[in-house]
């Protein structure tokens, strides 16, 4: 048996030692509120570092019982193969239930139209597939890994964020959240998006992954890759998912991905950080924000807010 459990109070005293303990305790509390207040929660899993962190927090919240809700992946069909491989292995190792719904199906059913051209991406098409899946399974709470420090519209997001029948976010009429109390009362047809790591920064997530020795997909670490440059960003040229014009030249570079979304909207960064320690150091020293490599946010200043109003994560 160990000594006193280190929590916020102790954490405050041990200067120099980085620990996300206060944030971890908050996230575990939120996970438990979800399990207690909702009938059919689901954890939205993308295979990215944030959702992998959520899985660890959910394990901690319910130990020694299994995580009492399934994982769901909205697969754009444009994921990095390393991410899919990782997803399947994690689910198997932890004995979790995984639901996969494909954007390709929504396209085939004519519900959404594939974008074309230079900046074509399936990222915003995910919304339709997600909303259909929520309706299909009657999910009343969807746990996601969004963080307030990512983007300024997200900085306005609640921990329990109510969505209407159409999955819409009413940003001007949000419930106030006071103290630790989370109000999960909803009407039939509504659902709640839950963000347990709202208050974490990118560095908090990486430091947690480091401290907890959580395994993440290999593309987060520096590796050699065939790439091409466009608008000052580095794009993968390993396959034909990212549209590449004839005059955009392919070359080899040592890169890593700082955020892992749909391949068509996620750019790489030049990096030699090939271990978790080096990645943490790199993030600490970085002068560019995480979403600086996400072309989907660069479409306009309000890109994220607009997508969220439509039901995007």
């Amino acid at each position, binding site marked *: *048996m*160990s*000594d*006193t*459990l280190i*929590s*916020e*109070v102790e*954490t*405050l005293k041990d*200067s120099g030692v980085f620990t*996300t303990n*206060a*944030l*971890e*305790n*908050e996230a*575990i*509390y939120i996970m*438990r*509120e979800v*399990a*207690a207040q909702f009938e059919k929660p689901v954890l939205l899993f993308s295979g990215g570092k944030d959702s992998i962190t959520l899985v660890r927090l959910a*394990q901690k*919240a*319910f*130990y*020694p*019982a*299994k995580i009492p809700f399934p994982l769901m992946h909205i697969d754009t069909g444009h994921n990095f193969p390393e991410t899919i491989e990782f997803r399947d292995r994690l689910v198997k190792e932890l004995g979790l239930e995984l639901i996969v719904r494909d954007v390709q199906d929504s396209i085939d059913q004519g519900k959404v139209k594939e974008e074309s051209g230079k900046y074509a991406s399936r990222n915003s098409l995910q919304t339709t597939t997600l909303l259909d899946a929520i309706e299909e399974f009657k999910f009343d709470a969807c746990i996601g890994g969004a963080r*307030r*420090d990512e*983007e*300024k*519209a*997200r*900085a*306005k997001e609640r921990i329990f964020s109510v969505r209407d029948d159409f999955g819409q976010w009413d*940003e*001007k009429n949000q*419930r*106030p*959240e*006071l*103290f*630790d*109390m989370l*109000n999960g*009362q*909803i*009407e039939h047809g509504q659902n709640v998006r839950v963000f347990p790591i709202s*208050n974490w*920064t990118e560095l908090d997530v990486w430091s947690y992954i480091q401290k907890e020795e959580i395994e993440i997909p290999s593309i987060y670490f520096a590796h050699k890759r065939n790439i091409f440059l466009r608008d000052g960003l580095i794009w993968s040229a390993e396959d034909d998912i990212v549209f590449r014009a004839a005059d955009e030249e392919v070359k080899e570079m040592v890169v890593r991905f700082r955020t892992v979304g749909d391949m068509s909207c996620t750019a790489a960064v030049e990096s030699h950080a090939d271990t978790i320690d080096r990645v943490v150091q790199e993030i600490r020293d*970085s*002068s*560019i*924000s995480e979403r*600086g490599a996400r072309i989907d946010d660069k479409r306009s*200043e309000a890109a994220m*807010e607009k997508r969220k109003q439509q039901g995007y994560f």
Partner: protein
Amino acid sequence: MKVLKIATAGSVDDGKSTLIGRLLYDTKSLTTDKLEAIEKTSKQRGYDYLDFSLATDGLVAEREQGITIDVAHIYFSTATKSYIIADTPGHVEYTRNMVTGASTSQAAIILIDARKGVIEQTNRHFFINNLLRVKDVIVVINKMDLVDFSEEKYNAIKADFEELMSKRDYQDQHITFIPASALKGDNVVNKSENMPWYEGQTLLEHLEELDLEDIYNTGTPRFPVQYVIRPKTDEYHDFRGFAGKVYGGQLSVGDDVVALPSQTKSKIKDIYFYDKKYQTASRRSSVTITLEDEINVSRGDMLVKVGDLPTIDKQFTATISWMDSKKFAAGNKYLVQHGVNKVLAKVDTIHYKINPDYSGIDENIDGLGMNDIAKVTFKLNKPIFYDAFKDHRTNGSFIIIDTQSNNTVGAGFIQ
């Protein structure tokens, strides 16, 4: 890393966004791409200086109207601390936003425009931060550059504010005054060369040195049960763990505890945090507790130490902050969420309205509107287990939920 949550409150145009922007800028917390976006938009709009509010006003409507509508959270860090700023706007729903921001903050910044001095809004900001017992209040007297960095002006505003302080209820609140110019960068992160007469700390120096006594950690241990963990596996066949967060004081293995409301006694057998057992669970830790005896405990119940019981009652009197446009009236029914416990509540008596500007009370009222603060007695359909807010921040507070809209329409602090 230490985490410090700060709430900021201010009036229109007193430079709150500029102050936050200045903190971010001078601590080099704005990343190149965000800074470039601010530069680009500021230029497009023909401003002479960088408009830092563009970094914090995240909604289209906010940028269009040039105002902050909703609480925003801003994150930055120094070598020793992580900061979370809850930026609370002072418009239509001002009490709602300020009460929300103050409820999770350990410190608050109140901004005063040096040209205008203490105004009605300042009274309200101070009143609410005092009502919510925010431990540290930093009064930043901003725009000093527009009053020629005058020491006399600063002292006059300080004296006005000190008069307010004499009326406050929570006397132990720690209050600091800082003369500053957020626009020019005086006394925010870097020391001002324009005000040699000020010998105190800059805002950031002060924040860096704040004693981080946890805002929730007052009072005695309370353990509201959030969720019962029953693995139903061969290995943990009889396991019944009570998952929750420890508030107030700490709990240890072997402690004699009482489960409420049944008042059944038992002893703490094990304390789990994930797959490890611990001797003691500190305040604010999210643990799982098992008991020596098989007693009936479910969500909403509470474990407390023997001989240290909270008040168990079907009614209470509280100061409430009303946040909805629908009228709050005697006889109305609401859901009251106290911690993780929800009960039906009926408004028994509205004793009086409290003017949140220290101008007294109003007893002649037939109901409450948005932004009103009042003393109210509720009757409940079943007992809850509470402490007074002044003794126990967590176990003495609650939210009010509208049974039709399901919205959170108010918050209260039990007397």
